[in-house]
């Protein structure tokens, strides 16, 4: 059974189409990054997964159920970008309150522990830093031991240390096999923590694949090798080669399939010091999500 099954989702606000005929399937245990610029439709899509917004067209199924059923049974939980917390509750009281709403909640100390905030249970929420409040939301989301955890830009406004600690907590938890989908516009977060990246632009998916695939899709890789008298036309004829350039006794090849190029260099030539580097995800992101991107049609769905 699929963890998330979105079929042809469309959501309009007046004349604006926030989500446009979006289809996405996530299998259990996947860690998926939902990456896109502001206003791409990430939060709207997440709101529909959580039943906070009703789609104009299309269907949402979470482990085969509607969002409302999944929420009622605690199978889905979320850490929202700006979910409200009550300032005059302590951290522990907030967790205790939320726990009391579930029939079989995990013990409060356990989720506080896993979110890394056990030491500040007695602190008033209003006195907690942004990072601590976000880890509190994470602790609350863990109470029902959800099968699917959704995080909407969970580290917005956190400092570097806060982000690092937050992701450490998520990462540790993910080893238990929870399905995780997180929205972010921090490319390095998507790169570092997701198995799979779904790139969204103007309410539609423009690319979907592993981090490596996404990078490759946008800008390809660069292969550099030390090689005297290279056969430039043979290199240029290899599958996926975009450009070949000779610089002194080095050769630089831009390509979409670095494996083919490297195999050729190492088996058919005397090339030494072969280096393969990829453009960072930032470049891929910009290329894929900019409005006039020619590459956007290269996006594929799994």
């Amino acid at each position: 059974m699929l963890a998330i099954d979105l079929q042809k989702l469309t959501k309009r606000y007046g004349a604006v189409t926030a989500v446009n005929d979006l289809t996405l399937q996530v299998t259990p245990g996947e860690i998926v990054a939902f990456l896109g610029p502001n206003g791409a439709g990430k939060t709207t899509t997440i709101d529909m997964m959580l039943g906070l917004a009703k789609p104009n067209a299309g269907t949402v199924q979470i482990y085969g159920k509607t969002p409302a059923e999944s929420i009622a049974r605690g199978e889905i939980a979320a850490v929202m970008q700006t979910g409200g917390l009550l300032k005059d509750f302590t951290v522990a009281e907030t967790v205790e309150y939320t726990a009391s709403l579930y029939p079989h909640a995990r013990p409060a100390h356990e989720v506080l522990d896993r979110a890394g905030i056990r030491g500040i249970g007695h602190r008033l929420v209003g006195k907690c830093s942004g990072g601590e409040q976000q880890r509190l939301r994470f602790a609350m989301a863990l109470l029902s031991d959800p099968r699917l955890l959704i995080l909407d830009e969970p580290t917005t406004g956190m400092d570097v240390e806060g982000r690092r600690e937050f992701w450490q907590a998520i990462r540790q938890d993910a080893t238990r096999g929870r399905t995780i989908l997180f929205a972010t516009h921090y490319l390095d977060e998507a790169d570092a923590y997701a198995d799979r990246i779904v790139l969204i632009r103007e309410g539609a998916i423009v690319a979907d694949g592993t981090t490596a695939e996404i990078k490759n899709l946008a800008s390809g890789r660069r292969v550099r090798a030390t090689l005297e008298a290279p056969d430039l036309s043979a290199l240029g004829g290899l599958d996926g080669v975009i450009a070949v350039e000779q610089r002194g006794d080095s050769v630089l090849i831009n390509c979409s399939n670095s494996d083919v190029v490297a195999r050729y260099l190492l088996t058919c030539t005397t090339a030494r010091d072969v280096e393969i580097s990829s453009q960072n995800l930032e470049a891929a992101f910009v290329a894929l999500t900019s409005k006039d991107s020619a590459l956007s049609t290269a996006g594929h769905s799994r």
Partner: protein
Amino acid sequence: MTPELAIASDRGATPLGGFNLTALRLEITRMLRNRRTLFFILVFPSAFFFIFGLSYKGARDAGDVPLAYIMISMAVYGAMVGNTSGGATVALERNLGWSRQLRLTPLHPLAYVSMKVLTSMALGLIAICGTFAVGAATGVHMGPSIWLMAGLSAWVCSFVFAAFGLFVGVLFPAENVMQFVGPLLAIMAIFGGVFIPLSQLPKGLQAFAKFTPMYGVGLLARAPLVGGATMWAVGSVVLWTLLFGIGAMILFKRDTARV
């Protein structure tokens, strides 16, 4: 990929839509943590009881009834503030996004509002008990059944202000809503005969008072002591409760359409 070993897949639904005593206890504790609320439901009524009652020599000389009258009036005032404060938190929490957070849990909206109303009523009860305790300690004498009936009547009738709190909360969903509503409550309290007996108001105001929300509450709370309960008073409490309750519901619906 790691198989889903540790995560339970067999789950039941939450009984009573999530209504439970732990959440209720935490809500009440949280409300009492607010110094302003605490001041207005405990300190203020007792202080006014001292000012109007004990230090008012005429009241002492006139026997037990005027002192008890003032005590009950002040208890009603405390209950009124407590209930309004509790009710007003609903809209505030909505504004803060806490309600949205709760929508990600199995908590049913009806269970949430019930817990809010009970929290408001608990604050009202604390106000009444506090003022009655101070009264008893400083020489108010009433028969046991009058203590009980007056307290109960004040408590039940002050429910109208839980609905009022819901209503003004949606109108002005701000953290300091009580700062604006406080003076409004004081004016309403005057028309309920809380600070001075209605009979001492000018005739025109006395007639007007009958149509205000506090009128029936004050009259019914003091009825066990001095009598005078009327159908008008009962109708006033019921009608104002319905009016505020329905008004709040309509405003909430309008808000939901926008969100």
